[in-house]
C-alpha cells in the first residue's frame, strides 16, 4: 500500500508545504506568529524525518539499483524529466539531512528572535532543496536543487548572522556559484552526448577520455568548492563563523556533503579515466588539507573557526577515501560524511550553547566552565572525542575505513593522513582544555546556567546516533555496500576496457578489440601491456602499453600477475552497441 504512494516526492516537497503554511500566517500578532512558525517548522521537519525513515524501511539493501523512483515528464521537448530515486549512496545523506533539520529548528528556538517566520521558511525551503538534491536522477533537476540551496543559505547567513555576515554571505555565494556554473556547462555537454539529462543513462554512457578530462575538471570546480578542498576552502571558515548556530549546523552537516556526494555519484562512475588520471592530484590536495588545515586549526582563537578548519581536515579524509576507488575507501568516505555530519553539527551546537549565554566565541573568554556547566562539559567532551575519532564513536569507523582503503592505494598518503589524526587530537583536546578546564577566571562565567531541557533534547539524539554508529556501523555500511560496489565495478571495468588504449569504446569497436593483457615487471615497476587487433585487418596486432597512472590501485592490478581479458572483449562489444 505504501509503495503505491510517491513517498519520496512527498518527503521532498513536504517541507515546502510547511513553508507555505507559515507564510499564510502573515499578519497576525508578532509573538504568536513566531511561536506558530516554530511549531509548524518543527512538526513539518519531524514528519519529513518520519517519511525518510519509512523510505529506509522500504529500501532493499541488496540491490544497487535506484529505488523508490518517481518520474514524470517535466520538459518532454528537451527530454528532461522530474526523476527522483535513492540508492545506497544517497540514502544515508538523505536521512542525515532530514535528521538535522528538526535539530536546527530546536537549536534556533530561543536564539532567533528576529523575523522568526522568515527564518523557519528559509530552513524548510532549504530542506526541500537538500532532499531533492540528494535524490535527483536528472542532471538538470540535480543542478536546480544543487544551486537553489544558495538562496536560503545566503539569506540565513546574511540576515541572522554575526557582525561580519555580509562579507561571509557574499563570499559563500560567489565562491560556490563560480564552481557550479562550470558544472552547469559540463552538464549541458553531457546532455548532448547522452541525448537526455537522465543520470542513470549518463552512468552507462562512455565518454571520450580527452573530453572526460574537461568535464571532470568542470565538475571538480563545483564539488571541490562545496566540499571544500584546499585551496578553495577559504569561504568555509568565514561562512561558519558568521552564520547563526543552526546555519553552521546545516552547513557543516549537509552542505559540505554535497561535494562528496557529487564525487561519488558523478566523477567516479561517469569519468573513470579522468578520475584515475587525477587521483594523484586529489590525494595531494587531500593530504595538504588534512595536515595544513589541522595546523591552522591549532592557531585559531575563535571556537567556530577552529571547528570550521577541522571540518576541512575531516573532509580531506572523505576525498581521500572516495578516490581510492576501493570498497572500503568509499564506504569509509560515506561513513565519514555521515559521522562528520553528526559530530560537527553537535560541536557547532556546543559552541552555540555557550554563545547564546555569553555572546562570545573567543576561546580566551572561556575557561573552567566545567564548574558551572558540568552536563554541558560532558556532552562537549563526548563530541570532541568523536571528532578525534575515538574507537566506539562513529568518527573512528569512517576514518579507519578510509585509511584502510587508502593504505592499499598509497602507503605514503596513508602515513601522512594518519599524522593528520594526531594533529586532530591535538587541536580538539587543546580547545577542550582551554574552554572547559582550568579556573573560572572570568567573572561573567560564574553566572552560567547548565543545559536546559531543550538543549538536552537536541543533544540526546546526536549522542545516541554517534554511539550507535560507532559501535554498530553496519546499517550504513550495508546500505551503501551494493551501490558502492556497482560504482567501483563500473570504474574498474571502464579502465580495463579502454583506459590504456585511450580510445573511446564507442569508436574502439571500429579500431581495435582487445585480445589479451598481461602484467610485466619491468625494471622493478609493474607495467601492463595489452594486445589489440584491428577490426579492419585482424592479422595486424598492436601492443599498447598502459599509462603510468594505471599503476594506481585498481582491481586487476592487485589480483594476479596475469589476467586474461577475454571477458573484457565481451564487455567492450556490449558497450559499443
Amino acid at each position, binding site marked *: 500500500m505504501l509503495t503505491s504512494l510517491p513517498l519520496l516526492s512527498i518527503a521532498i516537497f513536504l517541507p515546502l508545504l510547511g513553508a507555505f503554511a507559515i507564510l499564510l500566517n*502573515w499578519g497576525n500578532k508578532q509573538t504568536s506568529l513566531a511561536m506558530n512558525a516554530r511549531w509548524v517548522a518543527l512538526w513539518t521537519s519531524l514528519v519529513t524525518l518520519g517519511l525518510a525513515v519509512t523510505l529506509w524501511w522500504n529500501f532493499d539493501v541488496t540491490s544497487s539499483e535506484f529505488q523508490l523512483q518517481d518520474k514524470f515528464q517535466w*520538459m518532454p521537448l528537451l527530454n528532461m524529466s522530474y526523476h527522483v530515486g535513492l540508492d545506497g549512496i544517497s540514502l544515508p545523506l538523505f536521512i542525515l539531512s532530514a535528521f538535522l533539520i528538526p535539530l536546527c529548528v530546536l537549536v534556533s528556538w530561543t536564539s532567533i528572535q528576529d523575523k522568526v517566520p522568515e527564518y523557519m521558511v528559509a530552513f524548510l525551503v532549504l530542506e526541500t532543496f537538500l532532499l531533492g538534491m540528494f535524490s535527483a536522477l536528472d542532471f538538470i533537476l540535480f543542478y536546480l536543487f544543487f544551486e537553489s540551496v544558495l538562496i536560503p543559505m545566503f*539569506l540565513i547567513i546574511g540576515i541572522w548572522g554575526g557582525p561580519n555576515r555580509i562579507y561571509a554571505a*557574499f563570499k559563500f555565494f*560567489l565562491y560556490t*556559484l563560480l564552481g557550479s*556554473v*562550470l558544472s552547469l556547462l559540463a552538464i*549541458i555537454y553531457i546532455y548532448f552526448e547522452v541525448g537526455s539529462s537522465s543520470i542513470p543513462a549518463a552512468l552507462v554512457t562512455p565518454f571520450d577520455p580527452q573530453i572526460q578530462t574537461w568535464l571532470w575538471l568542470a565538475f571538480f570546480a563545483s564539488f571541490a568548492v562545496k566540499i571544500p578542498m584546499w585551496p578553495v576552502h577559504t569561504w568555509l571558515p568565514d561562512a561558519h563563523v558568521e552564520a547563526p548556530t543552526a546555519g553552521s549546523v546545516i552547513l557543516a552537516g549537509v552542505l559540505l556533503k554535497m561535494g562528496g556526494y557529487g564525487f561519488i555519484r558523478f566523477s567516479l562512475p561517469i569519468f573513470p579515466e579522468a578520475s584515475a588520471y587525477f587521483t594523484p592530484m586529489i590525494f595531494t590536495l587531500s593530504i595538504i588539507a588534512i595536515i595544513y588545515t589541522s595546523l591552522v586549526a591549532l592557531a585559531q582563537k575563535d571556537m567556530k573557526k577552529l571547528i570550521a578548519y577541522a571540518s576541512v581536515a575531516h573532509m580531506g579524509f572523505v576525498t581521500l577515501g572516495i578516490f581510492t576507488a576501493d570498497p572500503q575507501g568509499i564506504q569509509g568516505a560515506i561513513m565519514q560524511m555521515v559521522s562528520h555530519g553528526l559530530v560537527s553539527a553537535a560541536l557547532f551546537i556546543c559552541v552555540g550553547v555557550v554563545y547564546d549565554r555569553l555572546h562570545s566565541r573567543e576561546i580566551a573568554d572561556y575557561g573552567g566552565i566545567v564548574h558551572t556547566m558540568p552536563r554541558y562539559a560532558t556532552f562537549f567532551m563526548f563530541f570532541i572525542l568523536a571528532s578525534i575519532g575515538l574507537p566506539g564513536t562513529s568518527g573512528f569507523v569512517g576514518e579507519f575505513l578510509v585509511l584502510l582503503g587508502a593504505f592499499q592505494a598509497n602507503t605514503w598518503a596513508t602515513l601522512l593522513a594518519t599524522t593528520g589524526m594526531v594533529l586532530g587530537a591535538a587541536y580538539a583536546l587543546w580547545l577542550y582544555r582551554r574552554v572547559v578546564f582550568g579556573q573560572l577566571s572570568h567573572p561573567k562565567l560564574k553566572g552560567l546556567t547548565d543545559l536546559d531541557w531543550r538543549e538536552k533534547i537536541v543533544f540526546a539524539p546526536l549522542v545516541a546516533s554517534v554511539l550507535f554508529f560507532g559501535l554498530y556501523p553496519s546499517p550504513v555500511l550495508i546500505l551503501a555496500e551494493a551501490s558502492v560496489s556497482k560504482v567501483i565495478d563500473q570504474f574498474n571495468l571502464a579502465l580495463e576496457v579502454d583506459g590504456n588504449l585511450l580510445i573511446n569504446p564507442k569508436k574502439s569497436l571500429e579500431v581495435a578489440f582487445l585480445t589479451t593483457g598481461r602484467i610485466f615487471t619491468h625494471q622493478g615497476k609493474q607495467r601492463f601491456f595489452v594486445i589489440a587487433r584491428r577490426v579492419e585487418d585482424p592479422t595486424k596486432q598492436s601492443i599498447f602499453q598502459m599509462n603510468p597512472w594505471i599503476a594506481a590501485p585498481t582491481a586487476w592490478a592487485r589480483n594476479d600477475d596475469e589476467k586474461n581479458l577475454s571477458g573484457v572483449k565481451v564487455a567492450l562489444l556490449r558497450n559499443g552497441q
Partner: protein
Amino acid sequence: MTSFYMPDFNLIFPEMLLAFSALLILMEGSFVKKRSFRRSVHYGLVALGLALFFLIFQNEVGQSWVTFEGQIKQDDFIFFAKALILLGSLGTLAMSLPSMMRENLTSFEYPPLILLATLGMLLMVEANDFIILFIGMEMQGLSLYVLAAFHRDHPRVSEAALKYFILGAFATGFFLYGVSLMYGFTGATNFDIVASVIRAESVNDLSLSLFVGLIFIMAALAFKVSAVPFHMWTPDVYQGCPTPITAFIGGVPKVAAMIVSLRLMMSPFLVLYGEWQSLMVFISAASMIVGAFAALQQTDLKRLLAYSAIGQMGYVLMGIASGNDEGIQSVFVYLSIYLVMFIGTFACLLSLKGKTPEGVQEVDDLKGISMLHPRLSFVLAVFMFSMAGIPPLAGFFAKLYVFKAAISAGLFYLAIIGGLTSVVAAYYYLKIVKVMYFDKLPETPSASHGQLLVLSPEIMVVLNVCAAIILVFFLFPNGMLELAQRAALALPI
C-alpha cells in the same frame, strides 16, 4: 505587377486598432473639456488589450501569410513576437500610472505615444521588407525620443533625451546606409528576394559591399538592443529619464529590436552565418563582460540596471550567435523571461517614494526596506535572484537554454565567458538584496525613505503577475518551450 491586389487588412487589424485608438485618445484629450490622465491611460490599456485579443483570436497555428505585396508577413514567429510586445506595453503602461501622476507628468499625449511606439514595434517585427522595417523602427524611435523628453523642464531629462535622439539618429543612418548597400547588391528590399539572391551565389562570389551592408545593419541593431560597443547611451538614458519612461524604453523596444535581429540573421542572412557569427560572438561576449564589470561600482539604481540590461542582452545575443534552432528558441524564452523580470523590477521601483519627486534613485534608497515592506522586498529579491540566474527561478531557465544553444553550436568559450560573467553579475544583484535585507534602516531616514506610493490596482496586478510567473515557471517550463518551438519552426532556416 499588372493587377492590383487588395491587401488583406484583416491581418493588420490589431495595428489599425492601435493607430485609430491613438488618434482617438488624442482627439479626446484635445476636445473634451474635463479630461483626466487616468482615463486616457485606461483607454490606452483597453486599446492594447483589444489588440492583443484580436491578435490571439486571429492566430492560426502553423499558418503563414504574406500581404501588402509581400511587405508584411504573419506566422507563428511573428505572432509570438507581437504578443510579447503587446503584453509588455500593456504591463508597462499600466504600472506607470501612479508615478506619472506623482511626478506631475499628466499630459494626455502619454498613452498615444506609447500606442504609436507599440505600433512601430509591431511593424518592425512583421516587416518582410527593409522599407517597412525602417518605417516601423523610425515610428517607435521617434515616439521614444518624445517620451524620453517628456519631462521637458528638467535639465537632466533634456540631456538624456538629446543624447538618445542624436545617437539614435546615427544608428538610423547606419541602418539606411546598410540597407542601401544591400539594395545595391541584390536589387531588392524584400527579405525573401534578398535571401534568394544571396543564396543563389556561393559565399566567395558575394560582393564586399554586401558584407559592409550587413555590418552596418548589425551596428544599427546593436545600438537598438544596447549591445557593446554601441551601448554608450544606455546608462545615461536610463538614469536621465523619469523612471516610468525608463521602464518603457528599456524593456519592450529592446525585445522588438532583438527579435528583428534574430529574424534578419536567421532568415535572409543565414547563408552568411560564417561571416556574421564571429561578429555576433564578439558583441555578445563584450556585452556580457561590460555588463558584468561596469555595474559593480554603480550606486545609482537605474545606471546599475542599465548595465545589467547590457549584460542580459549579451546572453540573448549568445543565442543568436549559435545560429541554430535551439538558439532561436532560447532567444524567445530569454526575451520573454527577461521582459517579465524587467517589468517586475521596475514595478517594484515605481511603487516606492524616493528622496526626490523622481522616486527611488540610489541603491541606498532601498536600505532596510524589508523591515517596512516584507512583501515588496521579497518580490524584488525574487527578481534579483532571477536576473542573476539562480534556480529555481525563471531566470535560470533562460540562461540554461541559452547555454544549451551555445554548447550545441560548439561555442564553448562563449558559454564559459557567459558562465563566469554571470557570477560577476550575481554580485551586484545580490548587492540589492543585501541592501534590502542585511542592512538596517538608516538611523535618521529622510522623510520619505522607503515609503510606498499610493498603490493603484494596476501596479499591484502587474507586480503580482510578474512575480508569480518568475516563481512558478519551473513547474511548467514546457508550455513556454512549446511556444518557442512553434515560433522557431516558422522561421525558414
